[in-house]
């Protein structure tokens, strides 16, 4: 694999991490990360949609007229999301229940439309597939880290519910990190904990990516300002 292809793939993991640096797809990030296993499930579902829609949109980029491109992208994305919904409902019903309305809401996840608009509509099929994979991995890792923090602090377990994804583990699989005798910090699994952990993680990512720059020159630190509304 050539260097530039590798760069496209790794771009999404830290430098252009969709959640922490580009601030896209915040809604599912906050909502489903009460457990690490939900984060993995959501991440994988979104990665699948991201790769498929990037491939299709990139292949059709010369056919789709410029004026109606957004409705076209949304239709392609919605088609793949429906596919994922059916697969998850059939094979991983526990995940379907845990993700609830956020599974169909992948359609309006800004990461997917954002990558279609920013990358797939301008690049070749292979590059777009790699970009989708890289962004998807970045998204999945971030969701898993955030889910782990919230789950360990909030309920004292780790990876509970993973049995739903991997049947070999059994349905009541969970790793207990904090002993049951210590009261868990249940606020972490509710809404305020989500915002708080997300804020702290984002600060961490900003610190990690801007720190070396500051030593070299007085270049103004890039902040993840704005979001995409």
């Amino acid at each position, binding site marked *: 694999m050539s260097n530039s292809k590798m760069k496209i793939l790794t771009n999404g993991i830290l430098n252009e991490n969709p959640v922490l640096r580009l*601030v*896209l797809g*915040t*809604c599912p990030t*906050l*909502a489903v990360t009460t457990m690490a296993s939900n984060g993995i499930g959501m991440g994988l579902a979104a990665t699948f949609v991201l790769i498929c829609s990037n491939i299709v949109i990139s292949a059709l980029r010369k056919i789709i007229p410029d004026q109606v491109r*957004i*409705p076209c992208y*949304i*239709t392609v994305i*919605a*088609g793949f*999301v*429906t596919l994922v*919904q*059916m697969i998850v409902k059939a094979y991983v019903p526990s995940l379907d229940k845990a993700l*609830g*309305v956020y599974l*169909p*809401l992948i*359609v*309006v*996840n*800004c990461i997917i*439309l954002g990558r279609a608009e920013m990358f797939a509509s301008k690049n070749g099929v292979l590059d777009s597939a790699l970009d989708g994979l890289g962004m998807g991995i970045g998204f999945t890792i971030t969701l898993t880290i955030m889910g782990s923090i919230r789950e360990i602090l909030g309920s004292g377990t780790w990876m509970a519910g993973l049995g739903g994804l991997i049947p070999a583990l059994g349905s009541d699989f969970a790793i207990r990190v904090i002993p049951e005798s210590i009261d868990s910090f249940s*606020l972490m699994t*509710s*809404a*305020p*904990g*989500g*915002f*708080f952990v*997300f*804020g*702290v993680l*984002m*600060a*961490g990512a*900003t*610190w990690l990516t*801007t720190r070396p720059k500051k030593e070299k020159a007085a270049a103004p*630190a890039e*902040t*993840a*300002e*704005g*979001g*995409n*509304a």
Partner: protein
Amino acid sequence: MALKLASIFFTMILVDNYVLAKFLGICPFLGVSKKLDSAVGMSLAVTFVMVMATAATWPIYTLILAPEWAVGTARDLGYLQTIVFILIIAILVQLLENFLKKFIPALYKALGVYLPLITTNCTILGVTILNLDNGYNFIESIVCAAGAGIGFLVAMVLFSGVRRRVEQAIVPECFKGLPITLVAAAMTSLSFMGFGGIVTAIFGV
């Protein structure tokens, strides 16, 4: 009946607030809440589209996609929900934009810039799907959508106030911008948790 509608309405505003409790519509919440007037404009546009979208999607789902007699048979098209709803919302937003531009230019000027953003706002698709998941009838769905919109307005207005103070605070370099805003959002969300159970206590439904 009226009691149930009131209970749904206030639950959507205070207890199940879409932004602060269900994490829907976080992007505009973080992006547009910097100034009070744009926060109000965006929320009004969202409320309007939400009610319109519910009024359009509810009959289409219950009468065309998955009518009662078809559930469980091959005619059940319920799985098309996502793709049909998002297209309806996209068309609706476009129609609304053209309509306002032609007939109510003043309103178009106020809401115009927010309209294109609304298609990909997850509160709209969220409210239309959740209404059906909860088994609400048509009137309940409309009330629920209106409540969700007003709840969005309340959260945006409150948070734009919080944000003005946060912007002036001195925070560590890496927390500047969004991270500290999210921590502030955590505090706002925490205060909304205090409303838990209040609606059930008042209306007894």
